[in-house]
């Protein structure tokens, strides 16, 4: 964990930006707004946030599945945002994606062998005659058997399909994988199987993960570091233990206290100190002027009193409050 494998700088993905001949002004959704983060080689960076916070969009725009509207994504020194067409396609096997819904992300008319073999064929990773053998090798690596190669997706359960989705990503021989909620469509007892598989594969193949999820417990278990997003911005970024033990940002604090822990005694204790957030996430079409969280922040008054800063007009900078612990809140500037 020394060199950043992927360096994201000031990345923005605004949908509906005025374009074309007439440049009619449109309503712009700032799904991702000015996000910077590094993903180091061999680590798992967890990306958490509630629905609509832009975590999936960030993952997709890092992989250039959306062309970001601003910013850069350096992958081993190459800026992916500048790459286009063939040059980008040539690099694509190095960074792959695992999708959320294993029911929708596999083509129902393709056999498993073709689904997994396709990336190998497209990127010419193996001579054609060897593709079948490679597919079988990967199937076994993800805990399936080689007989499955000639079946169709509908013959598999959700957990097995997600294994196939993982196999397809691995087939391209990537070193960076963006996993977008890879387990949230699965049952609890199956989730653990997939998490364990992903961890084993990571140590076997020296993979780097960007693991997107809304379940903080899962992310804490699998990640080395975690980034918390809210309304298109990263609010806090640090190693997984400190984010739980010493969360700095008020949003992270209330998010953590909202997550139920499977332990009745602890829950009763926590209930007394629970910070119930009021209201809901503002629309990303019309985010607050200052800090994105200011409409729900329970510590806004504190900032006003101690720092004389009005959170609803002044946006905080994303700064390193402690070594390795970044946050965007006026309380720490």
């Amino acid at each position, binding site marked *: 964990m020394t060199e950043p494998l992927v360096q994201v700088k000031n990345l923005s993905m605004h949908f509906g930006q005025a374009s074309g001949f007439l440049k009619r002004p449109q309503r712009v959704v700032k799904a991702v707004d000015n996000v910077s983060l590094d993903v180091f080689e061999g680590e798992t960076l967890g990306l958490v946030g*509630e*629905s609509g916070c832009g975590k999936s969009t960030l993952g997709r725009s890092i992989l250039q599945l959306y062309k970001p509207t601003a910013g850069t994504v350096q992958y081993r020194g190459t800026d992916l945002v500048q790459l286009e067409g063939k040059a980008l396609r040539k690099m694509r096997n190095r960074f792959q994606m695992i999708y959320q819904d294993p029911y929708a992300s596999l083509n129902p008319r393709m056999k498993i062998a073709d689904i997994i073999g396709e990336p190998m064929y497209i990127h010419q990773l193996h001579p054609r005659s060897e593709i079948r053998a490679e597919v079988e090798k990967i199937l076994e690596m993800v805990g399936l058997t080689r007989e499955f190669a000639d079946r169709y997706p509908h013959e598999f*359960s959700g*957990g097995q399909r997600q294994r196939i989705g993982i196999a397809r990503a691995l087939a391209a021989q990537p070193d960076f994988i963006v996993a977008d909620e890879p387990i949230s469509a699965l*049952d*609890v*007892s*199956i*989730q*653990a*199987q997939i*998490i*364990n598989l992903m*961890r*084993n594969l990571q140590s076997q193949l020296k993979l780097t993960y960007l693991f997107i999820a*809304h379940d*903080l*417990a*899962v992310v*804490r*278990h*699998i990640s080395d570091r975690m980034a918390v997003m809210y309304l298109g911005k990263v609010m806090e970024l640090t190693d*997984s*233990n400190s984010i*739980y033990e010493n969360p700095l940002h008020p949003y992270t604090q*209330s*998010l*953590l*206290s*909202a*997550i*139920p*822990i*499977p*332990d*009745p*005694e*602890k*829950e*009763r204790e*926590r*209930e007394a100190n*629970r910070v*119930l*957030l009021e209201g*809901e*996430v503002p629309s990303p079409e019309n985010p607050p002027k200052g800090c994105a969280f200011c409409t729900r922040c329970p510590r806004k008054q504190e900032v006003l009193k101690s720092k004389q800063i009005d959170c609803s007009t002044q946006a905080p900078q994303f700064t390193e409050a402690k070594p390795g612990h970044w946050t965007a809140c006026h309380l720490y500037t």
Partner: protein
Amino acid sequence: MDEALLEVEDLHVHFPTPDGVVQAVNGISYSLGKQEILAIVGESGSGKSVGVLSLLRLIPTRDCEVQGSVHFEGRDLLQLSDAEMREMRGNRIAMVFQDPMTSLNPVLRIGDQIQESIIEHQGISEKVAKGRAIELLALVGIPEAEKRYRHYPHQFSGGMRQRIMIAAGLACEPSVLIADEPTTALDVTIQAQIIDLVKRLCREIGMSVIWITHDLGIVAGLADRVAVMYAGKIVEFAPVDQLFKTPQHPYSKGLLNSLPRLDTRSEKPLEAIEGLPPNLIHYPTSCPFLERCSYKTEQCQTPPEKQSISTTHEVWCHHAGKL
């Protein structure tokens, strides 16, 4: 818990299909006390939703065969006529469904949807019902209730819609509220708000709740007692503290161990439950958990009977108390 409000006895729900009979619910029995929150936990396909839908007879009888009895206020719900059942639904027993996006009627104002059941069941005038609906909206925490009363479902967010569903459920002050994964579609911060609301209402108006979920975390903070379901059967029934502290069934144990926890971090891999639940068409003659159980012995070829660990803790496993 002295007197049971609702008593379900040996409930079976079977769906005949061209491929065979799907045994979705396979003989479950439980009781619900006054002001009690009972959680039913299980994975998809474990029969937890079908089990409660059939209490209210919400599954068309042409599609399924329901056996057993459901005693509520001295009557067997499964024997009532359709008209009598209609009297019950929404009036004495109300239901909140999982998906707040699809369970409200998009072309009716939310106020009308809330007061519909009051007018239907209590025969009061629309004017009085309107006042009641506005009160309910305020009760579930919707700001500017008087103005919002006239809005349509699309003008509300997911969390707000779930509150409206709860308000509609509470409209006739039912004694039982059945909530089928009411927070699964919501974000955690909103989920915390809804759980807080239901607990508060339960205390304030003395209602009992059956809460169906797959999330053991929610159960820990909410329920008084828990039923764990697997393959259409209850495999363990216990007060919440006992279930989490001393789970007796290998499946409950497995579920608890397979959860990553927010408050601890270990480098060890999670203890996954290998394999898949059984096919409900070819229902196993053995213990339904046999295939995935790491404690299995010869004995397990026969389905286990109920074993009582204590007066309140029941488990359906041959090895109960010995694990």
